[in-house]
């Protein structure tokens, strides 16, 4: 396997379960990623990021004292954030729609449901690498564009001032 491209990647794992951190590290190592940092919660992770930036974050959702939602919000919105565009993969066993929506609105890039498999983890990273998302900044949100696709016959309502800019009206 060509490992050189992976060797330069720096990944931060934010997860309160030590065994889960170990599992993620094992999977990342298996594809040649060597630069891996680990944090047990969002607050520690933010401190680590200020000391040493990284290229990708894998974060759990449920942690204390700072959970994955607040952590993502800090990365996206804090003036002290090392990189507000950092890709964040949120790992979650929570199936509750409300929690997933909160994470999405905090600026999470991708979701990865537990139980984790090599295929599911690798395909999420590939997705980020292959199709980097445009970002949106408005009064109430900063993060990856939450609209995944454009519907050809979407009837509205249009919510952005430039939504109609690229429409070709006959």
């Amino acid at each position, binding site marked *: 396997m060509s490992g050189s491209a992976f060797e330069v*990647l720096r990944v931060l794992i934010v997860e309160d*379960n030590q*065994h889960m951190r170990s*599992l993620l590290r094992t999977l990342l190592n*298996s*594809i040649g990623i060597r630069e891996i940092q680990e944090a047990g919660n969002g607050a520690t992770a933010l401190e680590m990021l200020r000391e040493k930036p990284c290229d*990708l974050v894998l974060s759990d959702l449920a942690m204390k004292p700072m959970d994955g939602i607040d952590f993502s919000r800090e990365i996206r919105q804090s003036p002290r954030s090392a990189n507000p565009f950092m890709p964040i993969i949120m790992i979650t066993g929570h199936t509750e729609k409300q929690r997933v929506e909160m994470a999405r609105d905090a600026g999470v890039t991708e979701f990865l449901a537990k*139980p984790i498999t090599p*295929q599911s983890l690798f*395909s999420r990273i590939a997705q980020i690498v292959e199709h980097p998302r445009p970002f949106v900044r408005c009064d109430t949100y900063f993060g990856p564009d939450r609209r995944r696709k454009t519907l050809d016959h979407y009837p509205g309502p249009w919510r952005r001032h430039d939504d109609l800019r690229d429409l070709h009206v006959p």
Partner: protein
Amino acid sequence: MTKETQHIPPDAYPQMVSKSDAVKISRVLRSSEAVERGARAIQEASEHLREGVRDYVRELEEAIGDHEITAGKAHEIRGFAETAGLRATGRIANGLCRYFEEMRKFGAQPDPAVITLHVSAIVRAANAEDEASRMSDVVAKELAALVAHKLAETKTGLPANSD
């Protein structure tokens, strides 16, 4: 309503990797070789991971009586038991998590008997020599049926038909 929305295309902010590295990385990540390599790595670490699951199972047993802690431990077990090769343990923990989540939605108190049954089944499944045994699968199915029955009871406020 926002005054103005700013769109920032991917080319306008620093990317995780260069475009040439993205192609290489993507090719590897999408390959069956990478998936097999990852599966082998998990297999090699599986005993360590199982010990981790069993640590949580011990904590789960000790937590009975405290719904919040019990739900938290069940959540952790559900999260990685299956990846560690303890499939039935993960399934039963998933059933217990689902029960807690649904009861929370209803604003109802969980039935201690349902919790105890799940916890003892999780303990047995996690410590079984042959975890993939049919017994654990059968227990997981029966407990899932029990949860469905209890949820139906809670929803209607009436004892459900116990067929």
